[in-house]
């Protein structure tokens, strides 16, 4: 059993990477497996610095492939284990993530997005959105929370463990280099003080000593139909639990004529923009999906249907927009886009774009 560091509400001024390490401890995570890649390194650094106090475990592996697979090993051995990665590391970790998807392993991973494709920048992007939601050679049986700042990082990292262990779909906290590296105030708390109980963990491998039949777990099937039977069951279950998992945030979206759809840190810039636009008399509002997998489709469609125009804005070339457009098929609201690939979107950027949309409405 690990020792929890935060026993009462504590206001701290931290980087996001530090917040994630504290959150994992608050969630009673017992083991981290990891490999260095910017901008997530300080998650490992903080986790390691705290080890004498937390009595948790850490292994620095030889690459992200082994970080992913050894995390799976730790989880199968019955530990609340996790990892973190970014960019090219996230790409090669798909190998392990797809195995977690197939074998319903409660895999938890923090993704701190950086620029792509390839090595690109170590700074920031939202270009791992599609990869994190749908990576691997599969169907995206994954749960993805997109955070927008340090309180989110703390709240959703704790939540990720419970979602993963309750539903047994790999669960990701999708953040980015800005959130990892920036500092802002955050309130850390003991989850119990918020009525959050950690879902108990159990071992698949080892420790039975004859108390249960031997487990043989696999990800290979002989027949096409054998595979489809399993996946149909997964899909049915994913659809059934989705309403319990879906989360979103609306900001002044009720009467919005221009609805901005953005996730993660860009949604925060959008909130600044909404306030500035409203001060100028333009009725703007925000719809921010918090879960990207699964998307909260009903409220999303309702918000889009209410608006006169939609603006998609991302630090990517429409990775979220593609996912949303599929789900709002049939609605007639025209949309425009503000995509900055691998670059931060500021409030000013959005204000200017919405002003131009008001002058010259979108037609698509």
């Amino acid at each position, binding site marked *: 059993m690990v020792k929890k560091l935060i026993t009462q509400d504590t206001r701290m001024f931290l980087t996001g990477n530090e917040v994630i390490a504290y959150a994992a401890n608050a969630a009673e995570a*017992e*083991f981290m*497996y990891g490999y260095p890649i910017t901008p997530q390194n300080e998650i490992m650094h903080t986790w390691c610095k705290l080890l004498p106090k937390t009595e948790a*475990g850490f*292994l620095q*592996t*030889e*690459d992200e*492939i*082994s*970080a*992913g*697979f*050894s*995390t*799976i*090993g*730790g989880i*199968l*051995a*019955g*530990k609340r*284990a996790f990892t973190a990665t970014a960019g090219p590391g996230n790409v090669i970790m798909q*190998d*392990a993530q797809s*195995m977690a998807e197939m074998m319903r392993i409660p895999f938890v991973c923090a993704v701190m997005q950086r620029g792509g494709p390839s090595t690109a920048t170590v700074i920031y992007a939202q270009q791992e959105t599609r990869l994190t939601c749908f990576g691997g050679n599969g169907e995206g049986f994954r749960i993805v929370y997109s955070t927008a700042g340090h309180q989110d990082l703390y709240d959703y990292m704790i939540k990720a463990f419970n979602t993963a262990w309750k539903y047994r779909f790999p669960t990701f906290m999708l953040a980015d280099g800005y959130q990892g590296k920036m500092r802002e105030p955050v309130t850390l708390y003991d989850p119990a003080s918020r009525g959050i109980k950690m879902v108990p963990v159990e*071992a*698949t*491998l*080892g*420790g*039975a*000593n*004859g108390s249960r039949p*031997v*487990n*043989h*777990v*696999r*990800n*290979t099937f002989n027949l096409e139909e054998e595979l489809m039977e399993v996946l149909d069951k997964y899909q049915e279950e994913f659809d059934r639990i989705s309403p319990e998992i879906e989360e979103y945030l609306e900001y002044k979206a009720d009467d919005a004529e221009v609805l901005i759809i953005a996730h993660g840190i860009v949604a925060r810039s959008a909130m600044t923009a909404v306030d500035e636009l409203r001060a100028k008399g333009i009725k703007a509002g925000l719809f921010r999906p918090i879960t990207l997998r699964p998307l909260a489709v009903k409220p999303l469609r309702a918000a889009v249907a209410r608006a006169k125009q939609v603006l998609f804005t991302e630090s990517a070339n429409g990775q979220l927009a593609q996912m949303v457009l599929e789900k709002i098929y049939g609605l007639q609201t025209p949309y425009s886009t503000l995509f900055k690939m691998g670059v931060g979107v500021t409030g000013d950027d959005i204000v200017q774009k919405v002003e131009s949309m008001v002058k010259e409405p979108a037609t698509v």
Partner: protein
Amino acid sequence: MIEMLEKGPRLAKAQNAEVGASKFCPGCGHGMILKTLAQTIDELELNDKAVFGCDIGCSLLSWNYMNVDTVQTHHGRTTPVIYGVTRANPDLVGIAYMGDGGGLAIGSQHLVNAAVRSENLLIIVANNTNYGMTGGQMSPTTMPGQKTETTPYGRDCDVTGRPAKGAEMVASIADPEKSFVARASVSNLRKLKATFKKALKNVDMGGFSFVEVLSVCPLNWRTNNVQTWDRLKTMEEFFEVKDFVQREGLE
């Protein structure tokens, strides 16, 4: 004969009685290696502690062969899964089972780093000098001149390099105070069991063990019994069968 049938085959406790006949091809070495491993687990009474992981390739067919908790992983990834298990629960005895492709090609970085870090597990590489499940392509250990689907005119070492010697490589980097590194062969199962015994004891003591087992693949080799045996003997001349590293105090 009748008496034998009534008694049934003598299976090790660590072997899964429900699987019945081996799923491997006729004459395959995997069944011999796994049976010997199961007997060793019984004799050392590691049945409750053992956790078995198998790779992709023919080794994956062992996913329900053993009567111990088992995970079948991805190609080359059995080593990190199993050291992930034993890092999380050091009381367990982890066994990662793979072929020469999984151990020495696609998973070689895991093998090297597990050896360097003295990860607490036994890695078994069944070396049959080719990729069996995918139809007999060249592997890192394919012998000079050996015909495979991707070296149909025989392996030309000038073009493809020389065969990889796994045990020698691991021996050169393993910590002599924590490791057991050996090469054995299915030509002598009694000796193989003695090798597995030392390897598993060492893992139970917290150490790192590596055993490369020279094995046979008559189907892809396209050899009959006599030819298969001869090929195995040729391999034993090329790949030295011995204990390379043995920590002090290990018997």
